[in-house]
């Protein structure tokens, strides 16, 4: 501002000090005001002071971030070194035991019912179907008024389902066997976002839903009233996935987004308690390790990573040079020893969580695998794909003696 010449063409009351002076136009937040020369000078030096403070804040923030990164990487042992004592896993013969064909379009999401055999699945054409996968019978079907239903969830009681997508909403449908009732009639609109719904999950009961959205936020809702109970802001871009922690006493969940960050939230306060930013691209899926002390993430950078919450850092990367396409969906086996990941190259890779090695690769789909979940009792896992089908995989059990030998600390 120093070497500008000011043309004084107005004489009047200063907008700041109201004294009668010669005025010049100044711009504050794109609003034009008229200040006297004294007030203009003060504003200029204030601005300078402000930008100095801003620069100081920025450098402080950056140095603290740097310190944090350093501390996180101060490690004493790698997972591989610790896991050397564990026996390597033998070959698993994993085959498709059921295939559900009934969606006329890309399957985008699925969720298991707690009865271990029913599932709900949603697809691009708006269809949401409830199946008894064991008998492969369809039990309920509803067509949403929008396309790309990217999120669906089964209520803990088994009496309702939730789903949403490009309609920016999450709706709950009670499941009814009454022939005279149209499922869509009892639909309840619960969540409202300003962009697409990417993920949803019931908490421990049918009465609360947690949602993640392309508008960069997550939110907790009361199902009955549709009231927003808590919102979670902090992601710098679309949130793509979430998972609730199976922890003893806490109320936390983890979310992953297009800002490459995985963030752990306290449901009660709405605050982010931990954040991890080591992925190189969008995080498509997050899932907790069964003990709740860690979580795995799958990303478009073709890697899956394991983050430990108590150590506050990434502890393992599951990647291979030949795996080029992004991982869309991850889940653990019941004991946490195996990590199943569905990829955009139509395959499913099975990883040994402890040793970091790939155990096997499964070919079974003719288009990208969009969703993958292990059943609640761990007897099988289900993969849904853009090839319109859902496949159920189970393992031929190894002979008893071999099974005892692997994964056991006392031998090896």
């Amino acid at each position, binding site marked *: 501002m120093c070497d500008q010449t000011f043309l004084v063409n107005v004489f009047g009351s200063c907008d700041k000090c109201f004294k009668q002076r010669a005025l010049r136009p100044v711009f504050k*937040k794109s609003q034009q005001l008229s200040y006297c020369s004294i007030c203009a000078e003060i504003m200029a030096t204030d601005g300078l002071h*402000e930008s100095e403070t*801003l620069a100081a*804040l920025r450098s402080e*923030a950056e140095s603290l*971030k740097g310190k*944090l990164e350093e501390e996180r990487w101060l490690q*004493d*042992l790698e997972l591989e070194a610790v896991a050397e*004592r564990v026996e390597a896993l033998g070959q698993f013969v994993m085959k498709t035991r059921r295939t559900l064909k009934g969606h006329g379009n890309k399957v985008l999401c699925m969720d298991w019912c*707690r009865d271990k*055999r029913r599932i709900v699945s949603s697809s691009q054409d708006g269809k949401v179907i409830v199946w*008894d996968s064991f008998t492969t019978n369809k*039990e309920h079907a509803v067509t949403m008024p929008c396309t*790309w239903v990217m999120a669906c969830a089964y209520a803990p009681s088994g*009496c309702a389902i939730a789903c949403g997508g490009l309609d920016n909403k999450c709706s709950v449908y009670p499941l009814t*066997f009454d022939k005279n009732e149209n499922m869509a009639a009892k639909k309840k609109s619960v969540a409202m976002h300003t962009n*697409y719904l990417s993920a949803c999950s019931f*908490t*421990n009961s049918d*009465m*609360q839903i947690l949602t993640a959205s*392309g*508008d*960069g936020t997550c939110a907790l809702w*009361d199902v009955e009233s549709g009231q927003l109970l808590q919102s979670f802001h902090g992601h*710098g*871009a679309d949130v793509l996935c979430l998972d609730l922690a*199976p922890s*003893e006493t806490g109320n936390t969940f983890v979310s992953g987004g297009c800002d490459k960050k995985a963030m752990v939230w306290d449901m009660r306060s709405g605050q982010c308690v931990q954040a991890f930013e080591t992925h*190189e691209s969008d995080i498509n899926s997050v899932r907790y*390790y*069964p*003990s*709740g*002390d860690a979580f795995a993430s799958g990303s*478009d*950078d073709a890697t899956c990573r394991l983050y*430990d919450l*108590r150590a506050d*850092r990434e*502890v393992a990367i599951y990647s291979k040079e*030949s795996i*080029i396409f992004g991982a869309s969906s991850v889940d653990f086996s*019941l*004991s946490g*020893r195996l990590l199943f990941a569905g990829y955009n*190259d139509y395959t499913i890779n099975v990883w040994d*969580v*402890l040793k970091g090695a790939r155990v096997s690769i499964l070919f079974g789909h003719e288009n990208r695998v969009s969703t993958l979940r292990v059943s*609640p*009792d*761990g*007897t099988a896992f289900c993969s849904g794909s853009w090839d319109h089908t859902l496949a159920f995989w*189970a*393992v*031929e*059990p190894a002979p008893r003696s071999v099974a005892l030998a692997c*994964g056991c*600390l006392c031998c090896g």
Partner: protein
Amino acid sequence: MATITGPGTPGGRPRAQSPHLSKMERVVVSMQDPDQGVRMRSQRLLITVIPHAVTGGDIVEWLAQKFCISEEEALHLGDLLAQHGYIYPLREPHSLELRPNETPYRFQTPYFWTSTLWPAAELDYAIYLTKKNIRKQGALVEHEKEHYDQLHKKINHMWDLVVMQAREQLRAAKQRRKGDRLVIACQEQTYWLVNRPPPGAPNVLEQGPERGSCTASRVQMSSDFYKREIEFSRKALGRTRVKSSICLEAYLKFSSQHSLHDPIMSGCLPSNPWITDDDTYWAMNAPMVAVPTKLRVERWAFSFRELLDDPVGRAHFMDFLQKEFSAENLSFWEACEELRFGGQAQIPDLVDAVYQQFLAPGAARWVNIDSRTMERTLEGLRQPHRYVLDDAQLHIYMLMKKDSYPRFLKSDMYKGLLVEAVIPLETKRRVFPFMWKRRHSSPSPALLPTSGEPPAPSSAAGGGGEG
């Protein structure tokens, strides 16, 4: 307050292109390396000789060697490279798939690489189809004919331009050598196979709904933003971090402890329903079964959470507590869970009920909480919300976990349960198809009658490991 949008804002720069495309390009470039790449040869097509061709079999072998993967996986990867238009077959270029034999392939020119992300305009497609039509009558396949007719209607006003361009390009092409002409035609055809896939072929360009369009990506680098970052970093630095070796040991312990309970790792008895079509396993492990299996009873000893998560375990624990005259603790805990996960509208009534039953002086089932927690809780009850009982609940939970739970595990009751528990006999898989067992359907949970009392909220599978 003045705000500045920083140059390196997360949303400031354009979203990076799909990382898989650049990775595929790196693979394709290294495949063309003169020393380390795939063996190049000249391919004879009728009377023309095309240089720098490779066979499908060589591609598969090279990929298998380079990445140390099986031939099946190498073929799958190679096939994806073809589907994305990075390699094309010299003969029959109307389908992009990799054949692991002597079929000749060539590498697509970078000009046509999928990552250039040209909009592949209608005008260009119209010109391409017109050229094909002119060059040889009836060369257009079914879906191309449809597209051609559609475009003819849609951009009819530009059709003179289309025909003129097509003729010009064909004329220019005639100036080139036959070999070059053939290659360019293949390259162009491949480009259009990727951008306008025939029906039935996967559309590799489809990505799903657009991401990164939200305004959250335009973060304002204001002083508020930095203050929040600083606070977050300070908190994170102040947090006590557990040594990674301890955490890693915890995984080993957890996984080995649960290994026998993991059907994928150790199978399940009598058999895995998905394999034998016999759902006895589910019947024997039903939520409220009368006699639980041995594995199930053993799991109750892994952690307090595992015991509480199992309805049968929890019921037995309640019996045990009744014998010890401290059942009100578990009932209180259950009531608190109901509050935490219940509906918003029920909160005032629930809080009141809990207070009357468990916390009020002289209450019928008064719980023993330390005075400070009790004071805080009673204070909070003036303005009830769903987390108002959290402190009290945690206190009682810890009491049960540290005190009652270990005694339960040592009790005769628990030992008796272990002895009585069932170990199912293994049923072998039926080999002969005519003995195929009919799959039983089961009643949907949505059909089950609701009991008078709201059920205790069932908890998620998997428990918190004891550290």
